[in-house]
């Protein structure tokens, strides 16, 4: 048996490995700690499958303090977002959250992110941990007018409470006015055991769920309050392993897999995060050029095997694309993968083969997501 691949590639550009404020809780809960995006985080506690199923059927609590948080503030905050990001934030009401990409001049994704609007002159941008330094540099390089761009990631902790019972858990520690009612909205200033939190109804699992932001010093109190509140509702701590299988089963893209600086939002199937109507923005000219030549698709694995990221996809003798991520989906009980394929071969039902470490395994293009929750 060979040990699974090194996680070294996930280390931050700075090379130093940090602990989140919840590190001691992870160790106490039996978390298996790995370096990820410059932080020591639990890849699993009891087991990826058990944690995955808990999130689908009850709820799970994730430490996502590694995520980056950047504040845009000033009279030109909106104009800067409009120029640097692909989505349109102009008609957005305070308390709303919007998904967007940030593109380079070639239309490639610098990152994917969400923007939370505090007020007309203040927005919170949440970015991928591994891209944080690059993103902040990019944002500042493109800044203009009267705006300050502050990277507050080092002061902010974040937990994700996800699963059908997450509202029930949250309502035990937060008064009703502190719980955002609609998807992609947030409440700032919700109190959990005296800690001031921003609670948003967002997530990365395909379930009902909340992402809760707070100062580092409050993180442990909030974590413990939620764990206690959820103890009899089936709440379990969940690690990076389940976070990845949950997002994949829900057909959600992961930066560095389904997209990178050489992949456009349209290729990645993220056109809903791009507004071509709002006027000029970085990358727009490149994105105006015709239909994409390749597209992200779902693959149903019809043969025996688990397709993994990087593996070639064949139509007969021709390579027509590559797998971007793949795993065994615990809730569906079968493997699934996402792939970037030449557009001509992306019709649902197209029969293909994946080269799974030298073995051809049959697969079929299918609709995304693989799993959709029943509302």
């Amino acid at each position, binding site marked *: *048996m*060979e*040990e*699974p*691949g090194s996680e070294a590639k996930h280390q931050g550009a700075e090379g130093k490995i940090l602990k989140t404020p919840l590190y001691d809780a992870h160790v106490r809960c039996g978390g298996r700690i790995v370096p990820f995006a410059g932080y020591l985080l639990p*890849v*699993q506690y009891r*087991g*990826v*499958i*058990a944690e*995955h199923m808990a999130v689908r059927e009850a709820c799970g609590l994730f430490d996502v303090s590694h995520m980056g948080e950047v504040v845009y503030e000033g009279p030109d905050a909106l104009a800067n977002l409009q120029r640097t990001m692909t989505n349109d934030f102009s008609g957005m009401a305070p308390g709303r959250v919007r998904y967007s990409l940030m593109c380079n001049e070639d239309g490639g994704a610098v990152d994917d992110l969400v923007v939370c609007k505090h007020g007309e002159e203040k927005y919170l941008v949440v970015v991928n941990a591994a891209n944080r330094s690059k993103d902040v540099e990019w944002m500042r390089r493109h800044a203009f007018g009267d705006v300050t761009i502050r990277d507050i990631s080092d002061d902010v902790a974040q937990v994700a409470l996800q699963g059908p019972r997450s509202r029930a858990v949250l309502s035990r520690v937060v008064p009703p006015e502190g719980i955002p009612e609609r998807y992609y909205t947030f409440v700032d200033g919700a109190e959990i055991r005296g800690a001031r939190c921003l609670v948003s109804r967002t997530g990365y699992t395909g379930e009902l769920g909340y992402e809760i932001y707070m100062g580092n010093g409050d993180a442990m109190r909030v974590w413990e309050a939620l764990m206690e509140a959820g103890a009899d509702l089936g709440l379990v701590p969940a690690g990076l*392993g389940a976070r*990845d*299988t949950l997002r994949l089963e829900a057909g959600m893209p992961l930066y560095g897999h389904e997209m990178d600086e050489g992949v456009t939002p349209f290729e990645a199937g993220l056109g809903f995060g791009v507004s071509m109507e709002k006027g000029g923005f970085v990358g727009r000219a490149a994105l105006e050029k015709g239909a994409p030549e390749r597209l992200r698709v779902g693959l149903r694995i019809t043969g*025996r*095997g*688990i397709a*993994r990221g990087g593996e070639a996809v064949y139509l007969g003798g021709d390579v027509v694309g590559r797998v971007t991520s793949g*795993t*065994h989906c*615990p809730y569906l009980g079968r*493997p699934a993968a996402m792939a970037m394929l030449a557009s001509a071969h992306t019709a649902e039902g197209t029969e293909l083969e994946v080269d799974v*470490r030298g*073995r051809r395994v049959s697969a079929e293009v299918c609709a995304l997501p693989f799993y959709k929750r029943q509302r």
Partner: protein
Amino acid sequence: MYFPKDVSYSRTHEWVRMADGNTARVGITDYAQHELGDLVFVNLPEVGDEAIMGERIADVESVKAVSDIFSPLSGRISAVNGAILDAPELLNSDPYGAWLFEVRGVTEHEDLMGAEDYERFCEKGE
């Protein structure tokens, strides 16, 4: 962690249970299944394949990653455990019962460890 005394252990975390002088069954150890996490897929050799000491003979996959299984001995594959193809989780729940393959006509094998030596080997985290 469980280290039964009726099997021998390889440095790559396979166990070997000799049936007689030249037939052996091979599986993965409790330490291995614990390190790998929930196993969801197994790829086994076919009966009649040649097993070569130190070479890749099978693989097991967790939700996160694929891991190669190396044959701790040389010989001919005489049986594979079909039950684990449909239920790879048996490797987690019963690692010393859920064997992977059987080798007959064993011509050579690695320097295998006894239970106590292997337990110390694992404690060193290798």
